[in-house]
């Protein structure tokens, strides 16, 4: 293998699994250290810069970072079945998401640290359609630079799906008001209750750029027999949720079936339970494991006594005299295609159909985009499936001054993706308005700094805590099921947050190797608790991976390979399960290993970004 180029910003970025997995590339270990140090304001601001909604995301994020977390690859595997297994012994990631909430919950007033609304505008006018997370991110990134941003939304308050679809028992209204308020306070013009119904008309208003962040507002329906006849008692999940949010609906019948296996279905069933539903169940087509809902959301629903039944395909709504009586399901099983493609198919088992009685049904089987307000002839191209043609990087539509982001761009995803799109769209819009090529993107900023303070002293806590993941405490179900506005999760207290923060491995503190200093004494090899380091003769990667002190089987994780050493060998380090404990560097007599903090910051829209995009070189600070 060729020696690893650690100057490439992606190399060490990939080692920080959580940050790499986060669409907005939040510097996770950095803010977790700040939380451990009790610097909640600083931790909050690190988050705010990257993901805009720390308090909201700290409760509702889809957490792509957590499945990626190295911690779940290095903890001791749970004992084999049949033996006494202590509670919580599963290998689990750091509770990254809920630590983010700790920063939001414990911060002081940070308003002074937010950018100020500029006194002088730059004369450029930007329209954002929809006041959801994507649009608000665009607005936040652009307004401080003097852009006049106008945000349109059909609802009275900004927030989009954050406000309309996420139930209050998961996300209190004041958290939304606070974080949405920070953005609206940057001198943004919010046109509440103003639904845009003609793109043509908006284009005619002469905006320099238009950002479409209108989400995926249409809930998919289920067109099976009985749908029309029993329509009064069958509701579309997201519409029903927003009616609940806005107080239009405050009760539901006793027996409720929720159809669908996504996070919306989980919100629907838990909301039903709070509005009078006694016998609430979720019924899904697929297997339990394949459900789209996040594992913790399924867990939360089941914790509230809601059963999830799987492999049942809805066949018919049964009804009598216009009144829904239940739903009939066909029993299916998952079969793999014989062609070895690994494709699964749901095949009827031939068992008799099952009928479940109920009084109301919530249909949460997916969301769709809908752009009835974009005229076919206004110059914005759509593909056959009805989605706009959007550049994946710049988010630019076929009409150069129109951009799409969030669910409106590529279909339903989640808040953190919407934020990531918002940042990228803001960069594009800024460059477009300054007459630059939007395809020339700025590289991220990279800092690499030694953490050495003394012979065995580092400026980060390199001791590895063996604690298992801490559970966020829940408020008692007897309270939470009575009132839809009472938040279920109470968040970590400071002491538990510190303990959970200590579980973080500091993957951003990188092991940096210098082949010219190494004397090949083997000290690092001997001390490494994970057997990550090997000195051996070079070879092709596939071959080298099998010859290391411990096999490097996780191909998603790179090998760090040095140039040839004095003995003709190379140093090869498998990044996969490195604890970043720094013992290699403590044991190294010559300083050939050093622990250096890698801090990657995405370049936000603005003048700095334009300069850096022109340079095209990653900047090592």
């Amino acid at each position, binding site marked *: 293998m060729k020696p690893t180029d650690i100057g490439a910003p992606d190399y060490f970025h990939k080692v920080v699994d959580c940050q790499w997995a986060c669409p907005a590339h939040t510097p996770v270990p950095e803010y977790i250290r700040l939380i451990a140090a009790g610097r909640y304001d600083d931790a909050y601001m690190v988050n705010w810069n990257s993901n805009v909604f720390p308090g909201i995301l700290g409760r509702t994020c889809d957490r792509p970072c957590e499945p990626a977390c190295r911690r779940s*690859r*290095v*903890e*001791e*595997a749970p004992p084999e079945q049949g033996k006494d297994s202590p509670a919580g012994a599963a290998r689990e990631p750091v509770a990254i998401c809920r630590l983010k909430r700790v920063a939001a919950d414990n911060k002081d007033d940070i308003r002074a640290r937010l950018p100020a609304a500029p006194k002088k505008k730059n004369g450029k006018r930007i329209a954002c359609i929809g006041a959801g997370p994507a649009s608000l991110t665009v607005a936040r990134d652009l307004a401080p630079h003097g852009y006049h941003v106008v945000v349109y939304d059909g609802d009275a308050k900004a927030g989009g799906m954050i406000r309309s679809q996420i139930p209050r028992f998961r996300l209190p209204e004041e958290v939304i008001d606070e974080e949405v308020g920070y953005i609206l306070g940057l001198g943004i013009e919010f046109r509440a209750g103003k639904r845009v119904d003609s793109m043509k008309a908006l284009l005619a208003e002469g905006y320099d750029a238009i950002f479409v962040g209108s989400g995926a507002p249409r809930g998919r329906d289920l067109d099976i027999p009985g749908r029309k006849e029993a329509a009064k008692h069958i509701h579309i999940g997201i519409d029903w949720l927003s009616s609940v949010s806005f107080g239009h609906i405050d009760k539901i019948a006793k027996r409720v079936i929720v159809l669908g296996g996504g996070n919306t279905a989980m919100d629907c069933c838990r909301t039903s339970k709070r509005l009078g539903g006694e016998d609430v169940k979720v019924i899904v087509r697929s297997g339990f494991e394949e459900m789209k809902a996040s594992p913790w959301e399924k867990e939360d629903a089941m914790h509230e006594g809601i059963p999830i039944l799987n492999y049942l395909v809805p066949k018919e709504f049964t009804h009598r005299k216009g009144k829904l009586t239940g739903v009939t399901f066909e029993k299916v099983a998952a079969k793999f295609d014989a062609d070895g493609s690994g494709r699964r198919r749901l095949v009827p088992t031939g068992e008799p159909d099952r009928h479940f009685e109920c009084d109301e049904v919530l249909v949460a089987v997916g969301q769709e985009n809908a752009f009835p307000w974009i005229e076919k002839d206004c110059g914005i191209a759509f593909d056959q499936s009805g989605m706009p043609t959007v550049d994946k990087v710049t988010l630019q539509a076929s009409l150069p001054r129109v951009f799409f982001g969030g669910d409106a761009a590529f279909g339903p995803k989640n808040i953190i993706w919407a934020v990531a799109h918002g940042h990228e769209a803001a960069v594009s819009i800024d460059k477009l308005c300054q007459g630059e090529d939007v395809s020339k993107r700025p590289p991220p900023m990279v800092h690499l700094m030694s953490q050495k303070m003394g*012979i*065995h002293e580092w400026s980060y806590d*390199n*001791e*590895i805590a*063996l604690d298992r993941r801490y559970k966020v405490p829940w408020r008692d179900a007897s309270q939470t099921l009575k009132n839809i506005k009472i938040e279920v999760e109470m968040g970590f207290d400071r002491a538990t947050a510190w303990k959970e923060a200590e579980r973080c491995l500091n993957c951003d503190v990188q092991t940096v190797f210098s082949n010219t200093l190494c*004397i*090949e*004494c*083997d*000290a690092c*090899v*001997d*001390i490494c*608790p*994970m*057997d*990550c380091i090997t000195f051996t003769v070079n070879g092709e990667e596939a071959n080298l991976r099998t010859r290391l002190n*411990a*096999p490097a*089987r996780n191909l998603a994780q790179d090998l760090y390979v040095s140039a040839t050493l*004095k*003995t003709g060998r190379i140093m090869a380090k498998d990044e996969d*399960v490195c*604890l970043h*404990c720094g*013992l290699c560097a*403590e*044991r*190294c*007599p*010559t300083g050939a290993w050093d622990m250096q903090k890698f801090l990657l910051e995405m370049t936000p829209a603005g003048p700095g970004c334009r300069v850096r995009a022109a340079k095209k070189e990653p900047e090592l600070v």
Partner: protein
Amino acid sequence: MTYLTKPALHHPTLQKNKVGYTRRDYEGKISTLCAGCGHDSISAAIIQACWELDIQPHRVAKLSGIGCSSKTPDYFLGASHGFNSVHGRMPSVLTGANLANRELIYLGVSGDGDSASIGIGQFAHIMRRGVNLTYILENNGVYGLTKGQFSATADAGSKSKRGVVNRDAPVDTVSLALQLGASYVARSFSGDKKQLVPLVKGAIAHQGAAFIDIVSPCVAFNNHEGSTKSYDYVREHNDSVNRLDFWPTREAINVEYPEGAVIDVAQHDGSILRLRKTHPEYDPLDRVKALNYIAEHQAKGELVTGLLYIDPDADDLHAHLNTVDTPFNRLGEKELCPGSTALEKLNAALR
């Protein structure tokens, strides 16, 4: 030097051996030696060897004297018996322990000061008596604890860190062990675990006095230009006569070698030492030739390493003394005090 304990977490593929332990279970406390010390690599090699041999840690006794090297038994086999004795006196304590309980596996860990200066007399006698042990000499040619004065194994002409040239002749512990009757004699290098681990395994399996001289660079005081015990010098002058493959039984051997390229030596415990020749003329079964070879190559400035001598028919102190098979510490009053009738019988035999 490190203050942190090595984290208990380990690689997910870490294997357990036949007695149910992982390699990590054979570790000891965190080392307090200088960073980069060769001794730590030797500790790692001992850990690896014991794990591979499926040794029950509580069946091992590790004894040492005084010095950097003699601190190391604290850093491996944390679940074994240990005795940190007086400077240079490990051999007599070990001999006593071995007499009391012949069933334990004995590791004597010593350094060049401990064995070649203050304890050279003790060293001579434990070899001569054939005590069943693995004597590991961690040889760095300097007194590290007192800041780098030459030890008795420093080569004449080698330079200290301060630039002083050593004029005294060195004690060659390998030749000494050969002359004194050790039945397993090897030399290796802390920086070459591929060579060292099988040598340690062979020595532990050997039922007699096994001696391994391990050149172990002192990074703090003896790893400079002009030193003959530095990483660079040893790598440049290492003349290995063979590579050892240790097989626990003949049946376990699963690698084929061309005929004439290997020497197989069966030990009493059934293990096979298979020596891959790197010097075709070298005969590790001939004590006198081995001595000559070492002397000749030493004169050329080469450091001869490998399994230098093995006596497949070795016996030990207990055989010399014709002791009973049961360890002394398990003999009860009945066996030790056979009574007046037996005494009378004995007295009568002597009349």
